[in-house]
């Protein structure tokens, strides 16, 4: 068994696709019309066969209150690995991305938390030490 797909609940798929590709740098993989929405996934740059991230509509009535409560407490439900949190922080800040947590050393990892503009907070994390 392996993890091949995970998802973020987004308020607008087209806006999400732009943010996750143009701003964060992921690459579009699947884009299949599915009723009023799309089966829309992105993958890490240069790794089209890697784990896919599904940009899933947050249409379920429970999704709104759930996302709102997480964001209110600053909780990122999703985390991406980066090589250098501080340089990504600077790069994304310049692109107008909002951060709710600046780069901070948290034990063996350095993390920062950003707003994906689609109703989610996303953590970016850099492992500084192994083991």
């Amino acid at each position, binding site marked *: 068994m392996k993890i091949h797909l995970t998802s973020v609940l987004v308020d607008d798929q087209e806006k999400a696709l732009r943010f996750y590709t143009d701003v964060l740098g992921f690459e579009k993989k699947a884009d299949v019309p599915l009723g009023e929405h799309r089966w829309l996934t992105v993958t890490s740059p240069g790794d089209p066969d890697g784990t896919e991230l599904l940009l899933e509509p947050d249409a379920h009535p429970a999704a709104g209150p759930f996302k*709102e409560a997480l*964001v*209110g*407490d*600053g*909780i*990122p439900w999703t985390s991406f690995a980066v090589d250098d949190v501080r340089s990504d922080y600077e790069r994304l800040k310049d692109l107008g991305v909002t951060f*709710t*947590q*600046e780069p*901070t050393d*948290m*034990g063996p*990892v350095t*993390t920062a*938390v950003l707003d994906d503009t689609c109703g989610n*907070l996303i953590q970016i994390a850099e492992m500084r030490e192994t083991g």
Partner: protein
Amino acid sequence: MGDVFRALADPTRRRILDELTERDGQTLFEICSRLATKYRLASSRQAISQHLAVLEDAGVVESRKEGRYKFHYIHTGPLERIADRWVSPGRPEASDEDPPDQRARR
């Protein structure tokens, strides 16, 4: 307003103030992450939330909603009044609580 001394009487709450001194304006998530990773304080998010409520009630932490996020700030006013009372008692705003004997003489 809650008792500032009671608020400060707990080591986790003092750590929260330490962390807010290092960076003012943190989400609940950041405070919990810092306590867990720096001090291995494995308190639940609810417990930290309650600690923050005690600190807020004593006036040493202020939480502000900014858009959809909520940030916590240290508020040193009550701590300055403690310093004024015993460290530099000559200052006019030194005490908001008169000693009982003076109160009796009025």
